[in-house]
């Protein structure tokens, strides 16, 4: 069976500091991978998605970037955090090409002070 991991679970960072959130998937090959941000009352906002190693599509221009250095690893980064980057970050995967059902990780709660 497939599992998805995210870490850290919670992070408190000062404004202007760098960020690295990691997501890994086990039990499948060549998944589609996704980063979402969820703000209270605003639903899920897609940030990035990837259909393969080194292939990143950005949905919203912003202070964040994503990378996929390995088939089942997806990293969300920032060089300098803003207050507005606070939120709940979710990683998700789906089977490649067919897309369809997404399966979510446990999430990372980020608070920028």
């Amino acid at each position, binding site marked *: 069976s497939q599992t998805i991991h*995210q870490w850290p679970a919670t992070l408190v960072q000062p404004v202007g500091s760098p960020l690295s959130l990691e997501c890994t998937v086990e039990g499948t090959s060549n998944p*589609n991978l*996704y980063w979402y941000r969820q703000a209270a*009352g*605003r*639903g*899920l906002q*897609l940030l990035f*998605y990837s*259909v393969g190693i080194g292939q990143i599509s950005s*949905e919203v221009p912003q202070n964040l970037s994503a990378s996929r250095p390995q088939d089942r690893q997806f990293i969300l980064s920032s060089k300098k955090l803003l207050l507005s980057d606070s939120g*709940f970050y*979710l990683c*998700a995967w*789906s089977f490649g090409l067919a*897309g*369809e*059902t*997404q*399966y*979510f*990780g*446990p*999430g990372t*709660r980020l608070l920028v002070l």
Partner: protein
Amino acid sequence: EDQVTQSPEALRLQEGESSSLNCSYTVSGLRGLFWYRQDPGKGPEFLFTLYSAGEEKEKERLKATLTKKESFLHITAPKPEDSATYLCAVLGGGSYIPTFGRGTSLIVHP
């Protein structure tokens, strides 16, 4: 552009009081409609995928149905542990990206 509207935004039920959550959608060429359950501070948990009008799926006290314009998540005799936010999403056309609704927050009182 695909659109998903969930109603009501919030629902309070007494334990055992059955009800339904609604997900109305517009999409070009439905490839799938998805229901998730999300507990506070956790990632969404997959419940069902429906592919075509008339399809139904069940899991414990939950039953999801699909028409050409909307989906219902029926909750029969709910228990307090069914309290959560329920999210609906649709995937259309040749996209890899589903469109999510804002969710229905369900509270079941003992």
